[in-house]
């Protein structure tokens, strides 16, 4: 039983990392209809870059987080401006292939600039151990979990209540109608890239804190993408929830069945779920009048 509980807790922690990336997928998809296949790579690049800046100013963890958010936002804006905006009017497929290209370039750049060694973040948080019944968690894990919960809630509230968030949903639903409302759709699309990349920056810091920074950390995208699909690619909160499911499933399958299953369990789940619910668990289904 203790083993089970600890596997679930570990799944939850990794799920929260997947979740932050999955929210990034969902925010961009929801607003622009584009799947950004570079989400994991963006996380990695933003983390490395922020780390460099952070080291320079000897930043404590909270400041590193802030730097990652700012760097993430700026980098998202840059990507959108340079690679995505000029593609407006091209087919969805070519835009998605562009994001794949960006992903591959970023994977190549990181080791060139920062080497291939993996390095953990040193933070006082990491040495604090907390016990919840049979479950033990480290301070950095709780920190990541708390950030994940806070950002999921914020993303949900943003799309549900804020004027800009609702306008982003409107633009995703019907771009022409949104334009006719006087909504500057292109600006919102740029903003969605900024938000997604900033959240990815947070994910990067959490990842480096819990595991380490490493030039293969982009692979987290392989868990986050099925998580986003599972929850509904157009639903940030659903994607976050999907990530928790994928994280726990990965942890359990690895713990009980064997190593290697962790990587594929997410895809196994989505194949099973999408057969029943093609829009994901929380995706917005086209409404039909009855």
């Amino acid at each position, binding site marked *: 039983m203790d083993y089970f509980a600890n596997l679930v807790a570990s799944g939850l922690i990794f799920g929260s990392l997947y979740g932050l990336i999955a929210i990034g997928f969902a925010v961009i998809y929801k607003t622009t209809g584009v799947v950004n296949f570079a989400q994991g790579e963006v996380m990695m690049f933003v983390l490395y870059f922020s780390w460099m800046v952070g080291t320079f100013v000897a930043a404590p963890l909270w400041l590193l987080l802030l730097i990652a958010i700012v760097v993430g936002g700026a980098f998202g804006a840059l990507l959108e401006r340079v690679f995505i905006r000029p593609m407006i009017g091209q087919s969805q497929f070519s835009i998605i292939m562009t994001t794949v290209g960006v992903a591959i370039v970023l994977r190549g750049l990181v080791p060139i600039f920062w080497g291939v060694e993996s390095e953990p973040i040193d933070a006082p948080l990491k040495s604090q151990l907390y016990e919840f019944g049979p479950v033990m968690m480290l301070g950095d894990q709780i920190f990541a979990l708390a950030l994940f919960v806070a950002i999921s809630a914020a993303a949900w509230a943003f799309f549900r209540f804020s004027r800009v968030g609702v*306008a982003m*949903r409107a633009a995703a*639903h019907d*771009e022409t*109608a949104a*334009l006719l409302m006087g909504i500057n759709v292109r600006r919102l699309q740029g903003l969605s890239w900024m938000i997604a990349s900033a959240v990815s920056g947070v994910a990067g810091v959490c990842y480096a804190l819990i595991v380490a920074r490493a030039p293969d950390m982009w692979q987290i995208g392989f868990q986050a993408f099925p998580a986003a699909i599972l929850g509904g690619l157009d639903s940030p909160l659903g994607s976050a929830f999907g990530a928790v499911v994928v994280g726990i499933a990965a942890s359990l399958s690895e713990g009980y069945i064997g190593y290697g299953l962790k990587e594929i369990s997410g895809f196994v789940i989505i194949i099973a779920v999408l057969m029943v619910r093609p829009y994901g668990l929380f995706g917005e289904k086209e409404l039909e009048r009855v």
Partner: protein
Amino acid sequence: MSGALEVLNVQVFYNDVIEAVRDVSLTVGKGRIVALLGANGAGKSTLLKAISAVLYPEEGRLIHGSIRYDGVDLTARNADEIVAAGIVQVPEGRRLFETMTVEENLRLGGYALAAAELGEGLERVYAMFPRVREKRHAVAGLLSGGEQQMVAIGRALIGRPKLLILDEPSLGLAPQIVRDIFDIVKRLNAEEGLSILFVEQNARLALAVSEYAYIMENGRIVLDGPSADLAGNADIQEFYLGQAKGGERKSLRDLKHYKRRKRWLA
């Protein structure tokens, strides 16, 4: 012209190959109510999309000509700037955000407004359409067609536009609802001085409601004049008002006594 919409020699292509509007000029004076008529595919919606700068999502492009409003050139402006200039369009098929509530739709219509103005705008729209107020928490996609059209018009009126463009507001609605909608449009025009440009398939209705009308065919304006004159025009009667004495429908442009439209020099 102050407060007037002036479309001059506009030409629009889709995908760089399909010419949907060619050399169209049209004017909507301040406080006027103007109808745009024409058969399916004549280019009416395309012209309205060009005015509102929403061609690009459909790969459409304004190749030639200019669009001015209140003396200001709006030709290369973005859609949000057109709205800010006071020109708001209710598109064909209403295009509500169907998964959102009625009130969320209305609030989106007031996207650019300050909070206080938005509240005042909502109240004004609810006062104008009590039915919309009743349904304000309902999901927009589940309303009846008539209710949806009222939401669409309300959504356009929230920001107090100066020129309201309506693309086939009667589409798919029962005759009584259509009359209600046009009563509202006429009232807005008469009481608030709102300029109106609307597309309508029913020529009789369009000519009865409007002061001036343009008739489009194959991307061109083939006839225009005061609505009362057009209603009495034998050709219009024959081709649009269904009073022909038999024989196949010909194009208006094939007629001998086709009145040539004066051209503007761009």
